[in-house]
């Protein structure tokens, strides 16, 4: 007991670089305030306050990020007893997350496309009952989605910046738990939505367990959970490699699951399809950014020196992911599932950049994340617009001849699909280019060839949708295209414009992404 006390006396209050972590503190603080709003505001006033709070928070966080980023030390800052690192990639990832979250929040806040919003008005009702139909027709929604979004975002920001595995695990849980809930909040097709939530939760819990077990083994190996200590231990000792690689394997499986890299993708199509579309947009864009931010940092920080041992395995994973995404994407008949498989394929491409383990690989992957996220948010914005009497008409056959009903929506969607396919003059092409050229420079030519083959196959299924929209006769009782309100219009505009700008003048973003490397 005396030992315990003497240890306690050695504790030091950590230094905190408040300015560096201000964006993160703002988001998490606002999430708490948002909970209080839920508790104390009357039901009808919650939506307005929540939207205002969320938007102001994101803007404030973005401003503080910019202010700090302008004269941040190039080498990065470690803070909170070195558990967080605010270096250039962190700043870029935070900026990306805030931007994407802003787009997703606009979609979440929209109440014009689906009267009352895409979220359930009262959650604890059994699907398919009379009460459920009453609920679906009600105006108003569960505004808990706003604090949940902010908590998830805060978790993602910590995840990207985490410098040790335990912090990373806590952040992983903070970002995951709200997402599990948000997946189950769809106003319509409650059963599908709840199924998505349960599946995501169960599989996500497994993944978290893998992650935690991996941490335990790595702690056993290195005697520390800090990335830098693990790297030092791996570089210069003759300890048991079994612990190291078993730990790394389990850890990476947990990360790959979150990033929906095949073959750890099985939750992706179901969850993307069942979740409310704005939440799908948030998950597809932001979770991917956070997860790949984590993958990059872990691989570069802890395992770079042993890459000869594990790179082959991740080659295989990347190929599997691209193959699964591209080939199964071809067979999908639901738009949301199709985009889900496309995200699996994109995760494969991102992994190609992540295992390059060079500064070019990092900056290429970061740029790819930004480009892909913005395109994805806009894509799901469009998906939410095509509706029939039962809600969103996501079956592909219902999209036939869409260009005749709404040429502008079809045109924008075409552009976004071309970006996902990686056709030149869109951000998708620049992203693929920087990632693949980085991979080529670190000697992964065969992998790049395979990646390009699969990107050609994947491109085909996007083109198939384009042809369907333009050259098929619309069904007589087909869906209508809702005229979006200001929020959704803004989200789609931001996404589509960014896709164009990042495709034609990407220099500024490439410069930001390449401004500096990780600090460990």
């Amino acid at each position, binding site marked *: 007991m005396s030992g315990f006390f003497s240890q306690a006396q050695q504790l030091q209050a950590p230094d905190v670089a408040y300015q560096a972590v201000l964006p993160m503190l703002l988001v998490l603080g606002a999430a708490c305030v948002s909970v209080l709003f839920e508790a104390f505001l009357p039901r009808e006033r919650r939506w307005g306050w929540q939207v205002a709070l969320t938007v102001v928070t994101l803007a404030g966080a973005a401003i503080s990020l910019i202010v700090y980023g302008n004269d941040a030390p190039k080498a990065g800052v470690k803070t909170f007893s070195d558990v967080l690192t605010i270096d250039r990639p962190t700043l870029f990832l935070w900026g990306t997350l805030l931007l994407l979250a802003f787009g997703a929040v606009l979609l979440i806040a929209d109440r014009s496309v689906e009267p009352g919003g895409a979220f359930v008005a009262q959650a604890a009702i059994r699907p398919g009952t009379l009460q459920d139909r009453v609920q679906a027709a009600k105006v108003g929604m569960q505004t808990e989605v706003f604090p949940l979004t902010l908590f998830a975002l805060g978790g993602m920001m910590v995840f990207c910046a985490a410098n040790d595995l335990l912090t990373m695990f806590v952040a992983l849980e903070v970002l995951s738990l709200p997402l599990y809930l948000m997946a189950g909040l769809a106003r319509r097709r409650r059963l599908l939505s709840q199924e998505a939530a349960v599946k995501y939760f169960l599989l996500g819990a497994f993944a978290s367990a893998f992650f935690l077990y991996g941490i335990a083994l790595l702690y056993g190996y290195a005697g520390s959970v800090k990335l830098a200590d693990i790297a030092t231990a791996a570089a210069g000792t003759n300890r048991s490699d079994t612990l190291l690689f078993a730990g790394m394997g389990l850890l990476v499986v947990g990360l790959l699951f979150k990033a929906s890299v095949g073959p750890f993708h099985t939750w992706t199509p179901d969850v993307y399809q069942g979740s409310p579309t704005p939440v799908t947009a948030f998950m597809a864009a932001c979770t991917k950014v956070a997860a790949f931010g984590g993958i990059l940092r872990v691989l570069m920080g802890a395992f770079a020196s042993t890459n000869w041992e594990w790179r082959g395995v991740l080659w295989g994973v990347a190929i599997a992911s691209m193959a699964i995404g591209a080939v199964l994407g071809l067979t999908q008949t639901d738009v949301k599932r199709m985009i889900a498989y496309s995200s699996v394929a994109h995760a494969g491409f991102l992994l190609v950049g992540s295992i390059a383990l060079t500064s070019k690989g990092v900056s290429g992957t970061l740029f790819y994340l930004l480009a892909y996220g913005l395109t994805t948010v806009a894509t799901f914005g469009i998906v939410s617009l095509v509706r029939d009497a039962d809600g969103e008409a996501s079956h592909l056959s219902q999209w036939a001849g869409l260009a005749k009903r709404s040429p502008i929506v079809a045109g924008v969607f075409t552009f976004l699909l071309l970006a996902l396919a990686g056709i030149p003059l869109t951000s998708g092409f620049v992203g693929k280019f920087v990632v693949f050229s980085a991979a080529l420079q670190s000697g992964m030519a065969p992998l790049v*060839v395979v990646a390009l083959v699969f990107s050609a196959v994947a491109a085909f299924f996007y083109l198939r949708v384009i*042809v369907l929209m333009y050259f098929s006769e619309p069904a007589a009782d087909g869906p209508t295209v809702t005229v979006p309100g200001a929020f959704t219009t803004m989200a789609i505009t931001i996404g589509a414009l960014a896709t164009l700008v990042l495709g034609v003048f990407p220099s500024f973003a490439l410069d930001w992404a390449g401004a500096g490397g990780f600090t460990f």
Partner: protein
Amino acid sequence: MTVLLLVLPLLGCLAVLGLPPKRAAAFGVAVTSATLATALLMAATFDYHRSGFAQFSVNAPWIPLIDLRIHLGVDGISLPLVVLTALLCALCAGYLARPSGQPERPRALVALLLLTEVGMLGTFVALNLLLFFVFFEVVLVPMYAVIAGWGGQRRAAAARQFILYTLLGSGVLLVGLLLLYSRTSTMDMVVLVGRAGTGLSHGVQVLGFLLIAGGLAVKVPVWPLHSWLPDAHTQAPTVGSVLLAGVLLKMGTYGMVRIAVPMLPEGAVALAPALGALGVAGIVYAALACLAQRDLKRLIAFSSVGHMGFVLLGIATLTPVGINAALLGNIAHGLITGLLFFLVGGIAQRYGSTDIDRIGGGLLAKAPRLGSLLVFAAVASLGLPGLAGFWGEMLAMLSAFRPAGGLNPALYLVFLAVAGLGTVLTAAYFLVMLRRVAQGVVPPRWTAERFGDVTAREWVAWTPLLVLVLAIGLWPRIVLGVTDGAVRVLLRGG
């Protein structure tokens, strides 16, 4: 001026979407004509004594981090192709504007046509590898849409095959370009040609050549990667077929001449025999396949594979003569096959079919002028001396007598012999086709039908092609004089 060449159709492409549908085709004619005028003006002011160097150059940074620059220019190799492209696009736009056959959704079709033109012209004037690739890709999607949207009955499958093959091809091409970039850290084509492969190891050169030429081979198409072509040509609407055969295929051979051979000379020497072998295999294969075809469009499509075989043979010799022959063959094939597809389009409009048995002969009796034009185009295509098709094939075979140093002359003699056999077979299938379509008596089912001979509009559209086929046939220096200087620069390495 090169910028104008690209900006005109691009602006046109955007503007046409805002016009009323009825005006679209006429507007398309105006834009493509203006582009053609620009191209002709360039040809007129081109300094032919310095044809080996890029003229009208523009060089501005675009995305410095990946070395993408807007580096454009025209030299002796690209000038004829630029003019050919502008000409065929203008003729296609004119074809769409004819009052008898307004297409469905004219706005979209004209816009896609103009976008394709931007891509095609851009491919030929780009002097930055990545820019070249960007334009190369820009062509694909609108072409896919043209086939998928306005094609024949089995258009979906044909369009799918087209896009899968060509996207895979561009993927491989991109890897090759990236490999080149990662070893030289420049994308500038002029610089790379000047270096002529110095500083690149033998292995890198061979691999690079394999990837780049392999990617381009899909587009050419080199046998056995050609199987997308017959379906795409057959199912595409007339304008699509004309541009596919007339210009798109040339992008492949142009890329080989411009990028693969001069930048990776050791790789070229190592792999040229294989290229030549595939070329002559294509010649013979296409000729045999043509003998078995019952559809006019399919027959012409397969004949393209054969003609491109000659072009490849010319390139594979790696000599100035051979490459000049290849470039001449390119132009001649573009003109002749463009004309053939227009003529077949005319026949299809009258007979409602392109099936040889269904037409059943007697075209010369039924529509003598149309029949004569078909005979003219067919004999030009089979390489009758005095017409454009002859020189490309003859010079290619001639150059195979004396391939460049480092290549096995005996092997090329074998190629020569096989190619000679191919010319005989080519003549055979074209003559068989003419006997079955043009000659003979009019079958009873068509005697009652009344359809006119060549209309005034058709004359206007086809005359430029006829004149050029004849002119190049009689005086090939029109093309060779322009290309020769540039070819020598490329092969000397700057």
